[in-house]
């Protein structure tokens, strides 16, 4: 195990009590336990409170633009498959602006970890409803409440054969660390959603609200994360009962391995000599 202090980053700008803090702590713990060195790790994020996460950690970082972390992360993996790549973004970012890339990532199955900090709100822009906001959520743009139901991201993932789907809760540090570790050691796209209370803007989905509802899915007598229909049913649960844990696993070949071009290792810094005469000969 490496010392978790190894990953200490710059001072955070989150609100006291924010669910992002326990996530940061648990993530560092997972990295330390898995002995992933900062220099071998790239955190990719986008825009939102959750997307500041990589700054508060010592590692390579690409903090890109809103909704577009997955394409950047996939590009990194395709240039250097020896890097450990983790995406840390918000619900608004990935399920709103970035929805199309989520669909594509499930198909591609690159070997990376996608962590969505789900606080059911657009926090950084001060509290608008996000795609996961519960129906009826009131905000400045919806004084009568959001009229339609939320997205079901986990069911979406299962339906598209995402190779690993799990959920955890920022209020359960140990569970969270374990889930980070599982996601980080999965080969292929590991999609981990974390219920992350926003103490400032989300006065409904609080620590208490989640704590009352979450249950560890492994405790179910019918636990069968390799059974797609089972996983689908569990992934669709939301309300009085919210499942956490590993919900779906489907071993699949990873994207990177479909490129023979990557067999020789990273593209990084590779400067192939190309036969000009041969290239031109095709046109004569």
């Amino acid at each position: 195990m490496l010392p978790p202090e190894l990953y200490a980053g710059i001072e955070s700008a989150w609100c006291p009590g924010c669910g992002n803090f326990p996530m940061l702590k648990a993530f560092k713990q997972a990295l330390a336990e898995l002995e992933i060195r900062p220099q071998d790790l790239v955190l990719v994020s986008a825009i939102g409170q959750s997307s500041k996460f990589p700054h508060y950690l010592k590692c390579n970082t690409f903090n890109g633009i809103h909704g577009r972390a997955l394409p950047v992360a996939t590009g990194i993996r395709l240039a250097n498959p020896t890097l450990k790549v983790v995406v840390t973004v918000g619900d608004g970012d990935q399920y709103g602006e970035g929805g199309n890339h989520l669909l594509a990532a499930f198909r591609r199955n690159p070997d990376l970890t996608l962590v969505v900090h789900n606080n059911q709100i657009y926090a950084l822009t001060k509290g608008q409803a996000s795609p996961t906001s519960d129906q009826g959520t009131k905000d400045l743009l919806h004084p009568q409440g959001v009229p339609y139901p939320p997205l079901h991201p986990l069911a979406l993932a299962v339906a598209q054969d995402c190779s690993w789907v799990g959920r955890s809760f920022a209020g359960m540090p140990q569970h969270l660390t374990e889930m980070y570790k599982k996601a980080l050691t999965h080969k292929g796209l590991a999609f981990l959603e974390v219920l992350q209370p926003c103490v400032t803007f989300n006065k409904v989905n609080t620590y208490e609200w989640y704590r009352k509802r979450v249950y560890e899915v492994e405790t179910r007598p019918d636990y069968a994360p390799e059974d797609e229909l089972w996983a689908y049913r569990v992934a669709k649960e939301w309300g009085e009962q919210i499942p956490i844990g590993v919900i779906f696993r489907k071993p699949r070949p990873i994207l990177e391995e479909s490129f023979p071009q990557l067999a020789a290792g990273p593209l990084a810094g590779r400067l192939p000599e190309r036969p000009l005469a041969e290239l031109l000969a095709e046109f004569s």
Partner: protein
Amino acid sequence: MPIDLNILIGGAAGQGVHSITTPLARSLVRAGARVVVVQDYQSRIRGGHIFNVLRVSDVPLAGPREGVDLLVALNQETVALHLPELAPGGLLIYDAEQVQEVPPGVPALGLSLEELLPGTQAGEIAVNAGASGAVLGLLELPVAGLAEMLAESFAAKGEEVAGWNRQAATRGWELAQKFPHAVSLAGLTPPPTPWLLMSGHEAVAVGALMAGLTFISGYPMTPWTSLFNAVAQRALKYGVVLEQAEDEICAINMAIGASYAGARAMTGTSGGGFCLMTEAVGLAAMTETPLVVVVAQRPGPSTGLPTRTSQGDLQFVLWAGQDDSPRAVLAPGSPAQGYAVALKAFDLAERYQIPVFILTDQYFADSQHTCRVEDFPARRIPFALETEPAGGVYERYALTESGISPRRLPGFGPELVVADSDEHTPDGHLTEDLRVRVQMHEKRLRKLTALAGEMRGLTTAGDPEAPVVLLCWGSSRGPVSEAVSRLAAQGVAARMVHLSELWPFPREPVLSALEGAKKLVVVEQNASGQLMRLLRQETGLVGTQAVRRYDGRPFTPEYILRGLSGVV
């Protein structure tokens, strides 16, 4: 008088217009002719009307011209549309099964399956092969090479089909012998080193490969697709990772990710797709990630005319993305220049850590030109990376005089590479320190100073003292240079100034090239005069006249001269 022959091959999409054009053009080039091929097609897969024009000469050609000397018509519509263009002494070759009516008095050779391959099931392809053969026959060139080429390209369909093609071409060649040979290419000698027939996008693809391209991502869009395809065909062989993205937003972000991680990366698209990329253009500039972006222009606004040509995206590309950010914009005027510009684009992107644009268009993309191997000099574009151990703290965005900071790759040492789209400190972390903001913003923009010094790419032609100057950019180079030659032939002294490097604007070179201009005619393929505006913005010089085209077809010397009538 040099030979100058225009062969128009027309029909409906799907009838095989291209399958005639390519082997024919290549045969001519191998025989020692200079050939330019332009394509005119619609945004549909079958039907409609499409045509290719092969211009053939025994001297170098700058580009296409108007007029038809030999008309190959695969259907009636082609006859209706193009026969009026047929020059006196010209000949019509037609598919006798498709063309019912040929106006009396037109010298014409009708080809039918019956006559070409009696007793076979060869169908349409026979007529196509026969027509190609007939053209060679008319031009007094041997048919054997063409017949082989056809047979080869149909080899996959079995020996029988290959044989049919060979025979039909030969038979077409024979049938042509009974016609007068107005133009003969019999005197040509094949070049010692074979010449190339290459499109603009193919040349850019070769340039990118020679520049060390290892990653490309994109989304299909005409006319960009042909460049993407040209790389795709060679990707596995040359170790390029290629990914088709779910949209253009992904395409550019993925390329940025790959470049951040150390691949030599490129993406591209056309107008509508470029709109979706603009946000990440700023991302590349802000994170100082090298990136080459091809924007293949076509007429807009919006979907516009997807398969036509335009130079309407210049100002858009210059300012795309919020707030000021550094970039370079290049626009090649020929395949050879396309190759050179591709190399330069990767070099600038690498050394300045900026996005570099290559502006092409449908005409540049698709039209094929005869080139010499010597036009493609090898050049190596090294990486500009910091690889020595940093010792202390590594700052990805260290403040430097040049604005260029030491770039490293993640995973290649203990130094952490932190990139951020927010305004950031030298070590890459987001900041609200507004003094740092000013330093960083100035640092990024400072790159433009040295970069400007590298902007040349001016081509001049014609009489260097002439008071009449035709200023143009990008793909219009060929037609404009020919217009200038033609003016000279008419006794009008004129010169061309062509720009293939537009931003940072090469102010001094342009000013000195334009010295002595009395009439400054800005020739460009858009309706509002985007280069004319840019010129005034950057130099204060006002174009006195303009020749503009925006019907989606490329310039021709004739079009330009018509536009100049009354002016010069």
